[in-house]
Structure formats: C-alpha cells, structure tokens
C-alpha cells in the first residue's frame, strides 16, 4: 500500500474541488470497496477524500419518481422503494452481507470495480488495472467472465446488482463535476472495454455521483430481480436478471430486461424485450425472450454455461414476475 493522505469533505463543492485538483485523489464513501482496493493494491491513491459527511443520504419520492441520494443507506429497506421498485429492493438485498449493506452506498455500488480474479490479483497482467499489460483472463480461468461486450483486451464483468436493476428501471445518475452538473442514464454510465479497458465509466476525474433518479414508469411496480450464484448468499452473480413489465390485458405493453454477471456493464437485453413487446405474455413469448436474450453471446472457454443460464434465467424471471 502506497502512503496517502486522508481528508474529509463537508460540501459537494469542496469534495469535487479536492478530487479534481489532484490526479491521484479518489473519493471514499462507505469504504467497503475502496478500503479493500487500496489495501490490495488495485488502487494507489495519493489522497482519499471522505465524502461520508455529505448530505446525500435521502430517499425521496416526488412527482418525477424516486430520488435516491448517492450516500443513502439500506435503500432496499425503504418502504417506498420496496413498494414502487421491487426489482431494486431485491437487487439491493441480494448484494453482499448485512454488515456490508449497512455502510455501502448506492454511488459506490455503481462504481465498484470488477471481481475478475485477474484484476483483483495484482500479480497478474490486467489491462483494466495496468493498461497495456495484457488480459490474463482470456487465457486463464474465465468461468466468471463476460459473454457479452468484452473485447480482446478485457472480458471483465461488472459486479453490481443494483446497476442491473436501475438499468431495467430507466434510472439516471446526477453528477457534479469540475465542468458542472449532468445527468447520465445508468446504462450509459459504463464504457465497454474496447481497447481502453482502464476507462470504465464516462465520468471525468473528480465527477461525483450525487443522486440516482428513478422515473415513474408503468413497468417499475411489476419488476423482479433474480440472481444465480455459487452460494445462497454473499456471492457475486454468475448470471442475474432484472425484469420490469407492463402487461395490459395479457399483452406486453412495455418491458425492460437487463442482465448482470455477463458483461462489463449492466446488459440491456433489447432483443428479448422486442420478443415480448406487443405480444401475448405467455410461455411461448417467454421462451422466445429467453432465446433472444442470448443473441450476440460470445462465450469464453470456461463460461459457455452462462449462455444457457441466461436463457433459462430470463424465462424464470419472467415467470416469477408474472405472479406479482
């Protein structure tokens, strides 16, 4: 671990100014991710700016939906979130452990780094961690890696559960940065690795997520998060599915399907959505959606099973949500 300075910010502007001013500065929110990354050497900041005191902790329901402060705690327990956004509550609850959920923040969750073994183990080359060193996962054990959106330089998957749910809810993040404020759809927050896997998001250095907005949609209330993993709790997704559904008179009026554990970012399964939209919501349609969800999959030597799991998980998630 390289020595670094620690400071605490008291306003958003202080925080943004402090991090923007120093290329080696990073934000520290709940700490559940950054403290590990620093200890294990994937991050070597010169300064950590603790934003834990910033007033970004509120979950508020208003005319334009639900606004979730970037530092809100245990969002999945919030009664309005549970009622209006079940997929988000379920995704939040399925993440990590009670102790971690007690301090983790939504902003930090969205920006957590991949759990790819080869990113986490600093003895291995990794283009995401050290550009130009190569991707050890491509030739290594890549069971947990991407089947969508990877490149010859990186096949890491994004580990967030709530990002998948938020993608299915058309959510956006609000940021404050050195260049001002902006709004970014969650899905577009992440860059695919291409030939620059180290650039993981579209955020500028010092740009801070301050809130997440979930708009009112006709499909949010009937939504579901399904997560497949190697252990009943406290494990990252092999495959996860967020579905949000608006069925009227037996016909799918609108739908969102997002996949987790399979791509470097939450993966919108648009072909699967298209297979449902405007059709009767029945077994055939669900099967077709499952099939369509695998469109474009490029499995690696050890993760071919994910393709079939995606197909089955989408079908299952759609049947589960039907019961709501």
């Amino acid at each position, binding site marked *: 671990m390289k020595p*670094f300075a*620690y400071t605490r910010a008291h306003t958003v502007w202080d925080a943004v100014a402090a991090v923007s001013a120093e290329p080696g500065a990073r934000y520290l929110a*709940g*700490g559940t991710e*950054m403290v590990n990354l620093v200890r294990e050497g994937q991050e070597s900041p010169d300064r950590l700016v*603790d934003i834990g005191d910033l007033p970004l902790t509120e979950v508020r329901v208003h005319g334009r939906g639900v606004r979730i402060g970037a530092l809100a705690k245990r969002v999945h327990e919030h009664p309005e979130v549970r009622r209006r956004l079940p997929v988000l509550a379920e995704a939040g609850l399925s993440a990590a*452990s009670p102790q971690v959920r007690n*301090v983790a923040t939504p902003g930090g969750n969205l920006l957590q780094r991949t759990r790819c073994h080869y990113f986490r183990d600093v003895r291995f080359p990794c283009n995401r961690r050290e550009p130009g060193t190569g991707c050890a996962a491509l030739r290594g054990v890549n069971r947990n890696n991407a089947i969508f959106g990877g490149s010859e330089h990186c096949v890491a998957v994004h580990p967030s559960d709530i990002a998948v749910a938020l993608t299915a809810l058309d959510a956006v993040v609000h940021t404050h940065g050195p260049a001002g404020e902006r709004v970014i759809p969650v899905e577009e927050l992440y860059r695919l690795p291409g030939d620059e896997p180290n650039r993981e998001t579209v955020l500028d250095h010092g740009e801070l997520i301050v809130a997440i907005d979930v708009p009112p949609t006709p499909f949010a209330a009937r939504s579901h998060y399904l997560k497949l993993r190697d252990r009943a709790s406290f494990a990252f997704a092999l495959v996860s599915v967020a579905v949000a559904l608006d069925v009227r008179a037996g016909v799918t009026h609108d739908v969102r399907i997002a996949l987790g554990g399979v791509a470097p970012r939450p993966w919108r399964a648009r072909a699967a959505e298209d297979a449902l939209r405007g059709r009767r919501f029945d077994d055939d349609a669900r099967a077709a959606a499952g099939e369509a969800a695998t469109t474009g999959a490029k499995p690696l030597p050890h993760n071919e099973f994910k393709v079939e799991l995606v197909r089955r998980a989408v079908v299952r998630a759609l049947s589960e949500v039907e019961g709501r």
Partner: protein
Amino acid sequence: MRLRCEVNGESREVDDVWPGESLLYVLRERMGLPGSKNACEQGECGSCTVYLDGVPVCSCLVAAGQAEGHEVTTVEGLAEGEQLDPVQQAFVEKGAVQCGFCTPGLIVATHDLLERRERPSDPEIREALAGNLCRCTGYEKILDAVRLAADRKAVS
C-alpha cells in the same frame, strides 16, 4: 494522524495513525482491543463486526479516518463487568463456541438482530447472520444460542 472516537463508552485518542490503517487495526493494535477478529480483512467473514454509531459493520472495511468523531462498540463493550450480555451467555450455554474466532463478530451481529427483532424466525436469523462465517460449528448450535437469547430477552 490523530484519531478520536468513543469506544465502548470511553473517549479514546490515538496518535500516529496511518490513513491506510483500518478501524480494525486501530482497535486491535493501537487501542488494546483485540476482541474483534482479523479472519479475512476483506469484509467477507464478519469476524471483525463492531457497532459503528449503533450499526454493525465490518471494521476491517472502515478506514481509520472514517471513525473520527464516531461511536464504536466492540464485543468487549457488551458485557457489564462480570455480567455477560444475554447473547454472550446463550452462546456459552448452547455450545455455540468452538474455536471462537468467529464468535465476537457473531455476538455483535446477533446482539443487533435481537435489538431490532423480538423472537426472529429461523429464516430471519439465517438471513441476519449470513455475513458471519463459522468453520467449526455448522451453525446449528449458533441457531440454538440465538433462539435462547431471543427467548430470554423477550421474557425479561
């Protein structure tokens, strides 16, 4: 840097803390409170669980500076002198302790559960304690202990 926080009801102040130290390290190596355990130091096992401002957290994932000005309660702060907390008493009585390395974290996590929930169901207990790994007991006697502590707290 200097770190001030309240630990087990006492104001504590330690100097020369490195920003890279965790709250767990500060408790164990600088404050003489090694009760919170260092089993994984990655937030995966729960053996370092402490209350931070009344909420159970993995102290290995709290940077030392984050604790500045906050209240910490460790497993050492739960008993009143010789009088064990009902959760501690139940863990001893039900044989929920073998090697005991997971025990401090489980005691804090269980203490929190029973503060929030009177007589939790088995699935509720399992869900609440899923962040605490135990390698010795298979968890059966831990469940027994939690049920016993819950019963005793409910009637008292």
